[in-house]
């Protein structure tokens, strides 16, 4: 589903975010990217939906080399990739329903599809009764569920999560992980960057560890370290 081949990415001559990184994620896999801040986890995620381009190497997503793809095709690539962030990135002037509907609206999905899919995905994340709330009326965990609903409403092949539990207390974070696990069980590939040891150790999934831009460990059913 995702394949990185000898990818090197630097932001300036001094800072190399990623050095000669290669790894592969199979369809339906759940992968943790772990490592301290600045080790290159976020860069790796940003390379996967072409928010960044590498200096060297290739990134393949769903059978396509996404760095040789013309700019005009990038939006269609991204429709297959959901994104979740530590700070949720919800639109504060829109309700829960509108936030999720927005993701479908801007890719031109018709109204009747929106009316059908948004309640379904809100039900999946457990927010059916909060459709009309605004983000500031929700707890952190609920806001993250809205953002997961938005990322998943278009049924993407891949879900990229950047520290999704970073702002949440442990119990809420576990709830979010159960939700991501359920989404993974539907066949969606999940790549999640985190430095939350407890969660990595609890889930026992594949762990790719980064240290100063280099992949130092790749382990099935791994723990944090």
């Amino acid at each position, binding site marked *: 589903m995702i394949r990185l081949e000898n990818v090197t990415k630097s932001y300036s001559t001094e800072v190399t975010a990623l050095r000669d990184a290669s790894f592969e994620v199979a369809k339906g896999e759940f992968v943790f990217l772990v490592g301290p801040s600045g080790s290159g986890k976020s860069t790796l995620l940003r390379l996967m939906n072409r*928010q960044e381009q590498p200096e060297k190497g290739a990134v393949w997503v769903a059978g396509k080399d996404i760095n040789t793809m013309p*700019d005009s095709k990038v939006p269609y690539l991204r*429709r297959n990739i959901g994104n979740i962030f530590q700070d949720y*990135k919800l639109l504060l002037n829109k309700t829960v329903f509108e936030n999720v509907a*927005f993701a479908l*609206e801007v*890719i031109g999905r018709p*109204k009747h599809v929106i009316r059908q899919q948004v309640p379904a995905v809100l039900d999946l994340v457990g927010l059916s009764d909060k459709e009309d709330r605004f983000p500031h009326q929700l707890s952190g965990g609920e806001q993250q569920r809205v953002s997961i609903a*938005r990322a998943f409403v278009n049924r993407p092949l891949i879900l990229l999560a950047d520290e999704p539990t970073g702002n949440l207390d442990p119990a809420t974070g576990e709830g979010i992980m159960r939700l991501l696990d359920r989404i993974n069980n539907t066949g969606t590939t999940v790549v999640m960057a985190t430095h939350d040891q407890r969660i990595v150790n609890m889930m026992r999934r594949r762990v790719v560890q980064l240290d100063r831009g280099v992949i130092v460990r790749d382990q099935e059913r791994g723990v944090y370290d």
Partner: protein
Amino acid sequence: MLARVSYAFRETWASFKRNVTLTAAAVVTSAVSLLLVGSTFLIQRAFDNLLTRWKGDVELIVYVRSDASAEQIAFIQEAIESQPGIIDVSKLRYLDQAESYAEAQKLFAGDPGTLRLLTPENIPSQFKVVPTTDDSNLIRELGESFRGIEGVREVAYAQDVFDVVSRVSQFIRVATTVMSIVLLIVAIGLIWNTIRTAMFARRREIEVMKLVGATNWFIRIPFMLEGLLQGLIGGVLSCAGLWGLNSAWSNAVTDFNDTELAALVVSDGYVRWVMIMLLVIGAAAGAIGSGIAASRFLDV
């Protein structure tokens, strides 16, 4: 499709409301600059009309001293009529002092200072001469020969007036063109800035849109629509202004119906054509300016 169109209009309207002052500034500036562009065209057209009319029968005017005797006047007339090869005798007109005074009343209506100096007694009478030839050298030679006749005060050539008008119209053309271009650039700059502000206000939305796979055109179009609308509203305002200006001007000029100034009226058809052009320029400048601005700031 319908969903996309309604989305674009909703976003455009919301953004319009959000940036009322900046939008108003952009609209007013584009209206003023377009008004200037339109005025340039009309002024140019008016001068062209004037010049073509004069070009048709380049005349020369022989002014007769106010104290000339009847014999002197008769002699001058004879001298002019003795050149049937060069002048069209049938079109020769003599305006006596009373008639010349009446004409001056109209010609100098806007210049009471000059008018006050003139009386039916001190004003020169005049022969209006229509030549049969286009050869301005020949006309000038003839005119100079009249100059020597006793009782002739002055010989004026339409060619001289023609040159002055050409020079004035040239100057006005350059001045208004430069001003309208400068203002048009300012207007585009203001539209650019409005769009940038609008995009900044919506940067979170744009970021999310890009991440969920909205195409650049989808993101850009509401902003282009906003710019187009600003330019178009500016165009409509400038058309109203231009229509008003032209009506006022035409009314003022009709008072001079039997003088050359009447040629300065521009036909309604031409005015309409200029107005359509202003709308198109306004809309295009707004849409293209904001489109480029949107593309510039679209990188997330």
